[in-house]
C-alpha cells in the first residue's frame, strides 16, 4: 500500500511540471493547450538525440534541450497562436490540437514508432522503510521538487512572476501599469516550454520514449490542473500530487489499463461539485 502511495507520489510530482505549464499558459493566454503532450514528447526526443547520438550526459542534455525548447515554444506561439489571439479559446484549442498532431508526428517521422530509452547506467533499486525506490524515481523526485521550488520563488517573489500573475488576472490593466504583455507572453511560453521539457525527460526516464508518450499524459495533466483550479499554480502542484496518488492507489482495485478512468472521474466530479477546482476563482467569463 505504502509502495503504491509512493509510486503515486512520484507520478504526481512528475505530472506537476506539465500541470503547472498548463495552468500558467491558461492563466496568461486564456486557453487550454492540448499540444502540451506532444510538446513533452518532442522535448524528450531532443534530449534523447543529445544523449544517445551526441553522447551528452543527461544533465547538460536536459538543460540545453530545455532552453532550446523554451525558445521553440516562443516561435510556435508566434506562428500558430498569435495570429489567432483574438479568436477565442475554442479556436485556440483546436489549433493546439492541430499543433499536437504535427509535433507528435514529426517525432514519429524522425524516430519511428519503436520505444527508446535514454543512455543511463543501470542502477539497482534500493529499499527505504520497506518501500522500493529506483534511481529514476529519486531523480524525478528531486528534480521535480527543485523545479517546483524555483517556480514558487519566481511566481511569488520575483517581478517577472508577479507580472505573469498580473497579466493572467487582467491583461489590459497590466498594460496600463507598465507591463509589456507581449514580453510576458513570451516569458510564459519560455518557462512553460522548460517545464514541459523537464517533464518530458522525467516521463521518458519513467516509461519509454515513443511518439504517444506525452499525449498519454494529457488527461492526467489536465485533470490535475483542473482539480487545482485552472490558473492557480499552487493548485496545479497539489492537484498533480493528488491525481498521481489517487490514480496509483486506484490500480489496487481497478485494472491498470483503465488507470486513465480515475483522472476522468475526478474531472467529472469537479465539474459537478466545484468547477473552479480547489484553489481557483469562480470567474465570470466576460
Amino acid at each position, binding site marked *: 500500500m505504502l509502495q503504491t502511495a509512493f509510486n503515486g507520489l512520484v507520478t504526481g510530482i512528475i505530472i506537476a511540471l506539465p500541470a503547472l505549464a498548463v495552468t500558467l499558459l491558461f492563466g496568461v493566454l486564456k486557453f487550454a493547450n492540448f499540444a502540451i503532450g506532444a510538446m513533452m514528447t518532442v522535448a524528450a526526443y531532443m534530449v534523447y538525440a543529445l544523449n544517445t547520438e551526441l553522447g551528452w550526459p543527461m544533465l547538460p542534455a536536459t538543460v540545453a534541450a530545455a532552453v532550446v525548447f523554451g525558445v521553440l515554444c516562443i516561435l510556435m506561439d508566434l506562428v500558430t497562436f498569435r495570429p489567432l489571439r483574438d479568436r477565442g479559446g475554442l479556436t485556440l*484549442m*483546436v489549433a493546439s490540437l492541430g499543433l499536437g*498532431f504535427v509535433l507528435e508526428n514529426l517525432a*514519429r*517521422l524522425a524516430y*519511428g514508432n519503436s520505444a527508446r530509452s535514454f543512455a543511463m547506467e543501470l542502477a539497482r533499486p534500493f529499499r527505504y522503510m520497506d518501500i522500493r525506490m529506483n534511481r529514476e524515481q529519486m531523480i524525478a523526485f528531486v528534480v521535480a521538487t527543485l523545479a517546483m521550488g524555483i517556480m514558487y520563488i519566481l511566481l511569488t517573489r520575483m517581478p517577472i512572476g508577479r507580472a505573469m500573475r498580473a497579466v493572467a488576472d487582467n491583461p489590459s490593466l497590466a498594460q496600463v501599469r507598465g507591463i509589456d504583455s507581449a514580453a510576458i507572453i513570451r516569458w510564459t511560453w519560455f518557462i512553460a516550454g522548460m517545464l514541459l521539457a523537464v517533464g518530458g525527460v522525467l516521463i521518458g526516464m519513467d516509461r519509454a520514449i515513443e511518439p504517444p508518450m506525452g499525449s498519454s499524459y494529457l488527461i492526467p495533466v489536465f485533470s490535475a490542473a483542473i482539480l487545482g483550479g485552472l490558473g492557480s499554480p499552487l493548485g496545479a502542484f497539489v492537484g498533480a500530487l493528488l491525481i498521481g496518488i489517487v490514480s496509483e492507489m486506484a490500480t489496487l482495485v481497478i485494472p491498470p489499463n483503465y488507470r*486513465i478512468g480515475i483522472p476522468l472521474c475526478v474531472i467529472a466530479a469537479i465539474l*459537478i461539485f466545484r468547477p473552479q477546482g480547489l484553489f481557483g476563482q469562480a470567474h465570470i467569463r466576460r
Partner: protein
Amino acid sequence: MIEFIVLMGIVVCFSGILALGLNFQWGLGGMVNFGLAGFYALGAYSCALLMLKGGFNTFFGALGAMVIVGAVCGLVAFVTLRVTEEDYFAIVTLGVGEMLRLIALNEDWLTKGALGLTGIPRPLSAIVPPTYYPYFLLALSIALVVACIWVLNRLARAPFGRVVRAVREDDVVAATLGKNVLWARVRIFAIGGALIGLAGSLHAFYYQYIDPTQFSTIVVAYAFMAVIAGGRGSNLGTIAGAAVVMLLLEGSRFVKELVNLEADQLAAIRIIIIGVGLILLLIYRPNGFLREYRLQAPLKEARTTPQSTKEVTT
C-alpha cells in the same frame, strides 16, 4: 480507376457523415468533441456487435449504433451540463473517447481486443450482385449523406437550433435563458452522436473488419479539417471539406511514389499535412471556403468590446 473513385466516394461519404456529426456538435452547439475517434469506434463496434453477436440485420445494427452513440453523447453532455466552459468539455470528451478506445482494446471477451472483429455483413449484400455492389453502396452512402443534411438543416431551423446558435456566440445569454438552452445542448450533442454512430456503422460495412487501430488521431484530424475547411456550421461545406481533405490524403499517396518512405513515416506525414493544414485554415480561412448560409452579419464585426478588435494594442 472507376472502381477506385467509387470506393473513395464511399469513404468520403461516411467520413463526411462523421464530420457532419462533429459540425453539428461544434458548429451549431459550440461543443468541441475531442473524443471523436472513440465515439466513432463505439459506433462501429456497436453496429458490428449487434449484428455479429445480436443477430440483427444491417439496418437495425446501424440504427442500434446510432441510438447507443447518441445516448452516450447525451449522457456526457448531461454530466458536463453545469459547466459551459469549452475547455473542460473538450478534455472530458477526450477522456471519454480514450476510455472507449481502451475498452475496445482491452475487453477481449466482447471486442476481441486488438484482433478486431471480422466478417461484418454489408447491407443488402444478399440481394445486390457482387459486381454492382460498390456502386450500390456508393449510392446508399450518398443517399444517407443527403438524408443527414436534410435532417440537420431542418433541425437547425427548428426553434431550439436557433436558440443554441444565438447562445453559441454569447455565453452570458445562456445563463439568463436557463435550462432550456442546456437541454438543447444535450440534444444537440446526442444528435451529433447519432450521426457519428451512423458513420461508424458505414465504416464497419465498408471495411467489413474493424480493430482499435482504425480509430486513431487521423480520424479526428480529418474530421476537424473537413469541418473547418467547409466552414464551421455549414453542412454542405463540411461535405465539400471532407472531399477536399480526402483528396489531400490520397494525393499524399503519390508522394510515396516519389520518395521512398516506410508506411509509418507516410502515415506520419499525412497527419502532419492535416495538422498544418488545420492551423493554416484556422488562421487564413476561418469561415472555410464556403460561407455559412445564415443571413446575419459575420460575427467578428459585431463585437463592441475592445478585446476582439485589431485596433486594441494587446
